[in-house]
């Protein structure tokens, strides 16, 4: 499973923020997903982190969080459930501790932020705006809005747009808004955040699931429910990426169960410009560099000069290559 460094001709670069002066150019489209790569250092001794397209940090919150009680993870068929509870040092502790390290790295660091109010999202964005070592923000709207009785921001187009707009006004950094699979109408949410100023969207976050220990007759996770991820969710994630790619023109970062080159190609062909790898990193950290390698060699073998040429090829109504800006009315 160890990747031998090979070379390929194909162009794997991708810009995830084409409309943003601060841009987000990746040398390749492979990004470890938030919460599955710590803060980068954890894997620095195992793979060449600077060979990646970028990496996402663990979700950061306004205040430090101890996270949920144990057990926090359990396995499910073809997947896993997690209820980490966003354990993190909080925005201030985070800024002191990690960006200074990343500054010396030649790979874009994307900071994943979570909050329970629009104001807190904006506050974190403002604090991160000019922190050296921070290349972009990923806005996790799969969290409960305490002003909406715990109803998740990402389930409602209006609330999703509100968060996006507030973050947009608070920073000029490239913004990737990460959608929740709990929403009924993904295209509606995607268009709403695009219009609200998102540079790109990423999807999907985890599905809500649970497991019960039949010996103790209690939920396996102390938190009762947890987020389902891994190969099991791939078909749902791919469908949502496919739908979103018919709704918006901004770049889409696809994720959810991606483990093999074939999985990755499915997401690109559905309309994703880049991909994130979460659970598969746990199964095989080298999957990240291996996918870059296999992708480059596959494109060469297919005689395709650049990755962009296969993006959306399986999606007849793919809008990513349109030149006119997308508007809700622009949709059929």
């Amino acid at each position, binding site marked *: 499973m160890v990747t031998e460094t090979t070379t390929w001709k194909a162009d794997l670069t991708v810009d995830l923020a084409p409309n943003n002066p601060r841009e987000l150019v990746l040398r390749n489209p492979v990004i470890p997903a938030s919460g*599955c790569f*710590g803060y980068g250092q*954890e894997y620095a001794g195992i793979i060449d982190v600077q060979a990646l397209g970028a990496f996402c940090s663990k979700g950061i919150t306004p205040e430090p969080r101890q996270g949920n009680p144990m057990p*926090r*993870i359990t396995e499910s068929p073809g997947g*896993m459930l997690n209820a980490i509870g966003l354990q993190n040092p909080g925005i201030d502790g985070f800024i002191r501790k990690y960006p200074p390290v990343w500054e010396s790295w030649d790979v874009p660091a994307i900071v994943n932020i979570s909050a329970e109010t629009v104001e807190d999202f904006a506050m974190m964005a403002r604090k991160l705006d000019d922190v050296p070592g921070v290349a972009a923000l990923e806005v996790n709207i799969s969290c409960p809005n305490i002003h909406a009785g715990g109803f998740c921001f990402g389930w409602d187009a209006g609330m999703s747009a509100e968060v996006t707009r507030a973050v947009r006004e608070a920073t000029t950094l490239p913004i990737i808004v990460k959608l929740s699979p709990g929403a009924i109408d993904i295209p509606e949410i995607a268009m709403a955040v695009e219009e609200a100023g998102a540079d790109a969207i990423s999807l999907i976050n985890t599905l809500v699931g649970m497991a019960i220990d039949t010996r103790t007759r209690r939920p396996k996770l102390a938190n009762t429910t947890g987020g389902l991820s891994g190969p099991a969710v791939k078909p749902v994630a791919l469908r949502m990426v496919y739908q979103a790619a018919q709704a918006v023109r901004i770049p889409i970062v696809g994720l959810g169960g991606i483990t*093999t080159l074939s999985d990755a190609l499915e997401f690109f062909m559905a309309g994703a410009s880049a991909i994130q790898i979460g659970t598969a*990193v746990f199964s*095989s950290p080298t999957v990240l560099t291996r996918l870059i390698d296999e992708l480059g060699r596959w494109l060469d073998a297919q005689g395709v000069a650049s990755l962009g040429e296969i993006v959306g090829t399986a999606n007849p109504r793919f809008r990513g290559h349109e030149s006119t800006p997308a508007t809700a009315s622009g949709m059929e």
Partner: protein
Amino acid sequence: MASAQLIKRQPAPTREFTGTITERMPVMGDAWLVTFTAPKELCAAARAGNFVNVLPHDHDVFDPPLRRPFSVYSVDVDAGLMTLLVRPYGRGSGWIVERQVGSEINVLGLLGNAFELEPKSTHALMVAGGVGAAPLLMLAREAVARGVSVTYLMGAHTAEALLEASELPDEVEYVVATEDGSAGYKGFVTDLVPNYLTWADQVFTCGPTPMFYSLRQVVLANRIGTKPPVQVSVERTMACGVGACLGCMVETRRGMKPSCVDGPVFHMEMIRW
């Protein structure tokens, strides 16, 4: 005071590698010693307590997805071989023990910290339960090599589930307990511990969680002050094994710590039981 600290992870390389199984040997009743090829740098760096995470499925199968942690049982540095003691329990360990000689397994390691044998220690007590025998066997060998006198207590439900005495260095005093009395003392291994608490400079243990609880009772009730200090290797379900997912936490007096990096070995005092 040492026991109020976390046990630092020694600088050991971590690699994802594919090993080829060279030997399978049935031991301790239903368990297996599984030996496979491994990078020599890893074999050389391995210390008692370190573990590796084994991928429990073929490359094109997606279930079960998560790696399973196994303590290093022994290494052959010159031959570049690593051995694990695997008891078939569920889906992952069951798959591993079914791999035949010649088949490949994907391994992530070295992971975690190691037992800390203090330089001034001359008498080490080890208390093993079930497959917890693995890291302590490696520790016994390290200790003997350093001239430390070792007493190795092992408990099991019956005689055949015990570690073979021949696996341990001759210098080690091997004392066993079985619940059915088929070998050694009839009862729990923890009942034997009090006899050794004045003798030992340090206590090391690994085994099922219930054993920890009774060991802790026995130690707190019988030792003098905080001597001898106790180091325990704990078990948590893991995903990443490198401190990235925060799924394998142990609640310590220093907060929630990932047992894959700040463990699996902890000073007993550090854990909030």
